[in-house]
């Protein structure tokens, strides 16, 4: 078995371990409803399996690093996978400070979704362009990802907090938005399901189109086209023709992917709701019934406190140093840079609101979710939609 195969297998082991650990954390919480004696046993087992998964993924990371010769954080697949790993690492850190099992029940599925999302991107080893050939790639990207992951734990705590305090039996704005968060999570599953399905079928349709600058180009769809590119013409078409043509500034291929994910996600969401006969937030609510709100609030706050300096160092300071070396200026208002600044400003506002306006508990929990939303926007939307120096994938 070659090193890169070993690396892939280790990642697979990690994924399965996280899945098992999630179930065990669920078991730990279920048990605590009864006697409480078994809780510790289940919890210990769950964190052990999490640790096995984490070290396995660390193995993936190191073996891939050795194989490629550079830190495996240079494209969408590598970065997003690493982000998932750091979320697990941050969870482990916070777990050993506060020993709250409920955290695992949300943190691990979030990490699983992120790793599954990463797996939808090409995982070949790609050579580095000159601007990426620097030690700052390792230093900047890893520190920034670590900072984001610790900040993500505050969203995990926030989500649990809201699942407990929001009354899902009565109609309210809170109930709507909480369910919207759950829906978004299901859409990610939808994306993973539909991408892997079409990729297993080796689906491909080829078109020529005219881009926004007026040049004729070719594009390959990996999902049946719902939206067509500007002035598209089929070169090799399978299954269906695009239903709607889009103007040149919109990438209809990506829009098609979004549409399929929403479609499958929505079907999945309603299937779950119809089978369970209640909202997804209501399904999770009994599991978090016993959590200590004060402690959760503290965890949410503490993870922002731990993550904020790390994020500043990685995503702003190290980034500026590298930009000065590679691009001759430390700041260039590239979309990714701007969104890193926005993330930073947002968490700065979070801290000030908490300190001086007393925005704690529920409000703080909502803010933590919005913050994580901004981080994901920077990861997904900025790379894929807004063009810039950072769109490597």
């Amino acid at each position: 078995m070659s090193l890169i195969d070993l690396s892939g297998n280790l990642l697979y082991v990690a994924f399965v371990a996280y899945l098992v650990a999630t179930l065990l954390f669920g078991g730990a919480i279920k048990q605590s409803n009864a006697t409480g004696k078994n809780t510790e046993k289940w919890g210990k087992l769950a964190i052990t399996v999490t640790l096995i998964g984490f070290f396995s993924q660390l193995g993936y990371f190191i073996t891939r690093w050795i194989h490629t010769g550079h830190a495996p954080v240079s494209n969408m697949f590598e970065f997003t996978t690493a982000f998932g790993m750091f979320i697990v690492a941050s969870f482990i850190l916070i777990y050993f400070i506060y020993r709250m099992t409920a955290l695992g029940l949300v943190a691990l599925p979030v990490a699983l979704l992120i790793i599954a999302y990463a797996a939808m991107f090409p995982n070949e080893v790609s050579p580095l362009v000159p601007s990426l050939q620097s030690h700052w790639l390792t230093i900047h990207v890893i520190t920034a990802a670590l900072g984001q992951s610790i900040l993500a734990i505050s969203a995990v705590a926030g989500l649990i907090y809201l699942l407990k305090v929001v009354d899902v039996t009565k109609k309210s704005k809170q109930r709507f938005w909480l369910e919207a968060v759950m829906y978004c999570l299901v859409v990610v599953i939808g994306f993973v399901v539909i991408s892997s399905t079409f990729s297993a079928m080796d689906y491909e349709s080829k078109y020529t189109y005219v881009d926004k600058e007026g040049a004729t180009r070719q594009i390959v769809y990996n999902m049946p086209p719902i939206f067509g590119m500007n002035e598209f013409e089929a070169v090799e078409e399978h299954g269906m023709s695009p239903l709607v043509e889009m103007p040149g500034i919109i990438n209809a291929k990506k829009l098609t992917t979004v549409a399929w994910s929403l479609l499958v996600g929505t079907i999945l969401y309603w299937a779950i709701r119809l089978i369970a006969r209640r909202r997804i937030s209501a399904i999770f609510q009994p599991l978090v019934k016993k959590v200590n709100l004060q402690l959760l609030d503290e965890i949410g706050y503490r993870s922002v406190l731990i993550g904020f300096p790390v994020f500043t160092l990685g995503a702003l300071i190290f980034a500026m140093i590298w930009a000065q070396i590679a691009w001759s200026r430390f700041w260039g208002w590239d979309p990714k840079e701007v969104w890193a600044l926005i993330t930073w400003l947002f968490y700065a506002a979070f801290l000030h609101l908490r300190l001086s306006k007393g925005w704690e508990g529920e409000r703080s929990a909502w803010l933590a979710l919005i913050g994580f939303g901004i981080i994901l926007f920077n990861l997904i939307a900025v790379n894929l939609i807004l063009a810039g120096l950072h769109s490597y994938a």
Partner: protein
Amino acid sequence: MENITCACGHSNPYGTKLCEKCGRPLTEEEKQNKVVDMRYDGTAIRSKTYNKSIIDKIWNFFSSVKVGISLIIITLVTASLGTLLPQEMYVNAPDAVKPAYYEKVYGWFGKFYNNLGLSDLYSSWWFQIIVGMLGVSIIIASLDRGIPLYKSLKNQRVKRHESFMKRQRIVAEGQVTASPDEVLDKVEKKMKEMKYNVRRDGSALLAERGRFSRFGPYINHVGLILFLAGVMLRLVPGFYVDESIVVREGETRAITGMDGYFIENRDFILETHNNTPQGEQLKQGVNVVAKNFQTDITLYKQPEGAIAGDTSNLEKVKDYSIRVNHPLKEKGFALYQMGYRLDELKQMNFALKNKETGQSLGEVGIDLTNPEKEYDLGNGISIKLLVYTPDFSGFDNGAPQTASSAPNNPAFLFKMITPQTPEGETSFVEIQNTIEPLGYNQYEMKFAGIETRDSTTITIRKDRTIPILFVGGIIFMIGVAIGSYWNHRRLWLQVEPDGRVVMAAHVNKNMFSMKKDLDAVTEYAGLPQYTDQLDTIAEDEENASNGNKEEKGDNTL
């Protein structure tokens, strides 16, 4: 403004909420609170005290945390607008046609975006004003709160009034059987073990740890202000140089912005990865991935006292290979590899030929960046270059025009003089086309080949603000780390001679760890069990089930 005299006799400045000496609540609001607001230890804050003059009003506006947060949010939202469409600096079009570009590519929205100035948002005056206001807010808010907080923490008394202690979040009350001194000794020993500073005053004890963490936010604000000041310094002439030059292979030219220095481009090197394209690379139709962009250069310097532009006695400074991520550094300047062009036309060769016989009378090589006016081939044969257009774009009123000064499409108007045609024959030559404007010629300038070379774009930067930005960044990181990773823990204890105990504790963040310390000391010294008043308040509220949770936080800056 009158001072407030507390029941203990201490005279407090106007605006004080908790007596500086004993901690008794002084305002009606604080008297009614179950848990006091400990944010600035109850000291008088200028902005909360005065609101008369215009200066007070401006001061109060900028010191308000609400205004500060609003400014953060405004900056955040406006910054995000700038990412909707690419900014002008990333648009690949000449400056003059950029507005048209936005309309052409993005339609009415592009036009709207450009007209609003959003396409150059970050250098707009209004964006800079927002950031400037944020800076002012940081300065004023820090002074407004930092100084009184520092004073009050420095002058803390050990003994506090019961009404102060009972309004803390953590409170314990009860009786001990051991002698008061023994209890105090035990607490002191345990707290010192846990790295607290302990002070005693009769029956009272104050244990304190990590006070410096309270100043973390103020330290990081200093760093931020220094950083912003550094950015502003760039506007001062001499602090900042940003130039670009194109240097062709074999050429030596003066470095713009770096007086007295010259650069020779010895060789430009482009290397590519020889991997087999797969995956994403294949999908995007990228055949090769660049591996290295490199210019081998020699840096020269004029001798002292030389006239500007005099290249006769250049002194060699060094040889260097400028690569991406490896700029050349010299005397505060940095030279970066920023771009290149391969195979740019360097020289065109022509043979002067008799059209009928095909006999060649000689060859000329025309340097396309530096052509000569006349090329003498001897024996009365010469070629005059009447007009040269490096980037021929057509005729205007019979005169050939050039689109740029780069030799992309060179064209020439020659006068060919031979013994047979002493008057000279005129010929207009462009690539793959010859025009004889004044009638039939006997001779022609026959294309005989080209020589090419690469050119490289070098960016020259000097940024003397970098050290300031760097120091600002370091101070910010130190401040933010101090404020985030440490916390200020305090424990007040009073043991009366009759064994009655009152204990209170305060921490600005991370109550979880404080409670661990409290558990340890409670057990060791046999103190009464403490209660967390926020828990009891929360329970009360849960029982009363009213949703109004506008409770002011216990967290302090």
